[in-house]
């Protein structure tokens, strides 16, 4: 067994014979075997979430980190199902509630298959600066050994599952903008193409090792952007695409004339609670370890959510005398979306500030900008996620702090507190433009395939649930 061999080698000079009784033959000890010090250091590395030595005896994942990442993966799935399904489902009219649920569930069933087949590989296999390679198709080589590019103490396949949950919720966010009028088949087809054209490249460029805009880990990245848990990758891509899609698709019949109140603010509020709870998996989980960075992200997430909700409701109280439940819900979600890119990088004080700005800006976007521009973003995917995600991306550039996240010093020392925000603007603009253009192209492509992206007017009047799914949300 591994004994403190080199010490004993000195002792051998004096007590060779005796030593032979109790020590393993030093000649049998290859140079590659871990010394006791190395072994202890490896164990310390587990606690510190640091890299282990090359000779490590523990080439597995660490239980604490794996436990947290499995929990986080479950939490992020919980955000979509039932979280987002309820948040969105409650906001549509009764006759369309199932269509929204079906879109969320449909994505939860289709995306994992794509992810297994090729999606994960295109995002996180080694490839070029813009897209991953094909090393990991069908999750080949994605096993329980940690993939050092993304974590030191979390199983590679847990990492793949964790990221899958992001690939499910991101297109599901788009659903909010086109609710109550887009065909189920068109939504599915659009989202699948969109994943390939927008999401996979964006995830690879910003989070992939060697990614073109991965400022944290890629020393050679031409654009040095940071995005802790998906301000650009998740909220900007989905939010800006949602805006374009809802404009191309046109307004709901009767929009602006007939009242279209939420059919159940209760469901919407339940969904909000679930989103908030699940978001801890989203943000604190993005540390890919149960370490100090996760702890900091947990704090920032909590404070920004609260500040966002409080701000939106306060503005309503101030402007209209009535704080609304939808205001509290929207503000909290805005606070969560906005802190996302910054969560593992900023202090508690910054988080409060970001939450405050999040609440105020999304409130204005949803209640003023939308009225003024007259697009019909049914459930405000743009107003909350694009506005929040974009703001948060910028704020991350201003507030990122190496005291909170030491990794910021590795490649970004020269930018931190200086021009990091400019890098953020660059990355945000590129992704924004790409999302917009891609959405236009995919929209027309889907229309060419399916004939139309919209349900016919009669179906829209009667509700999508019956015509598209043969079911009703509520019965006697």
């Amino acid at each position, binding site marked *: 067994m591994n004994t403190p061999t080199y010490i004993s080698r000195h002792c051998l000079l004096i007590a060779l014979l005796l030593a032979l009784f109790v020590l393993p033959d030093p000649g049998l000890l290859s140079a590659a075997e871990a010394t006791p010090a190395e072994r202890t250091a490896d164990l310390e590395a587990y606690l510190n979430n640091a890299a282990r030595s090359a000779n490590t005896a523990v080439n597995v994942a660490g239980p604490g980190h794996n436990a947290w990442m499995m929990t986080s993966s479950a939490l992020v799935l919980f955000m979509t199902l039932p979280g987002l399904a309820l948040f969105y489902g409650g906001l549509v009219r009764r006759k369309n509630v199932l269509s929204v649920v079906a879109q969320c569930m449909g994505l939860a069933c289709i995306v994992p298959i794509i992810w297994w087949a090729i999606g994960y590989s295109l995002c996180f296999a080694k490839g070029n600066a813009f897209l991953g390679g094909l090393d990991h198709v069908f999750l080949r080589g994605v096993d329980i050994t940690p993939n050092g590019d993304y974590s030191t103490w979390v199983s590679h396949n847990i990492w793949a599952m964790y990221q899958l949950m992001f690939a499910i919720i991101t297109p599901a966010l788009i659903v909010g903008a086109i609710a109550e009028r887009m065909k189920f088949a068109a939504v599915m087809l659009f989202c699948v193409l969109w994943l390939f054209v927008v999401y996979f490249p964006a995830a690879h460029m910003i989070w992939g090792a060697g990614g073109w805009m991965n400022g944290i880990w890629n020393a050679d990245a031409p654009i040095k952007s940071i995005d802790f848990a998906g301000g650009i990758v998740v909220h900007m891509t989905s939010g800006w695409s949602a805006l374009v899609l809802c404009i191309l698709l046109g307004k709901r019949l009767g929009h602006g004339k007939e*009242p279209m109140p939420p059919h159940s603010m209760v469901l919407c509020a339940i969904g909000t609670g679930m989103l908030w709870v699940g978001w801890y998996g989203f943000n604190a989980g993005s540390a890919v370890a149960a370490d100090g960075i996760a702890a900091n992200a947990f704090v920032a997430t909590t404070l920004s959510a609260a500040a966002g909700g409080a701000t939106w409701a306060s503005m309503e109280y101030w402007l209209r005398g009535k704080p609304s439940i939808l205001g509290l819900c929207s503000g909290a979600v805005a606070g969560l979306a906005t802190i996302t890119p910054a969560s593992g990088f900023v202090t508690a004080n910054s988080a409060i500030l970001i939450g405050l700005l999040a609440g105020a800006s999304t409130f204005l976007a*949803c209640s003023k900008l939308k009225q003024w521009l007259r697009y019909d973003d049914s459930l405000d995917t743009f107003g909350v996620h694009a506005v929040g995600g974009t703001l948060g991306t910028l704020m991350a550039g201003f507030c990122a702090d190496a005291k909170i996240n030491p990794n910021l010093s590795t490649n970004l020392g020269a930018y931190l507190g200086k021009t990091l925000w400019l890098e953020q603007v660059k990355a945000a603009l590129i992704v924004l433009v790409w999302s917009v253009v891609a959405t236009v192209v995919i929209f027309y492509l889907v229309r060419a395939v399916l004939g139309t992206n919209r349900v016919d007017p009669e179906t829209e009047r009667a509700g999508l649930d019956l015509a598209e799914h043969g079911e009703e949300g509520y019965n006697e």
Partner: protein
Amino acid sequence: MKKIEAIIKPFKLEQVKDALQEIGIKGMTTTEVKGFGRQKGHTEIYRGSEYTVDFVPKTKIELVVGDEQIEAAVDAIVKAAKTGKIGDGKVFVSHVEEAIRIRTDERGDQAV
């Protein structure tokens, strides 16, 4: 026989029912309805959008009574349902030609 239809404020239902029971009315049928009238509705705001809801929740009571009970019933309803505030509702009376109790096939005044 006459049919009385009364549109009243929902929270007055229990009182109206009690008043009718007191004068010996044995049956009635109620429906949740929405009324439009002088009483103003309300405004709901969801994010940017304001919706004016003109229709106010009301309860409709229908009862068929023999001709001799009609005055007493109407009075009972009006008295019990009154708050004096706008939106108290209406009572309408019309003629009914026939009534049948399904259980017994009884007809006319015996049926109600």
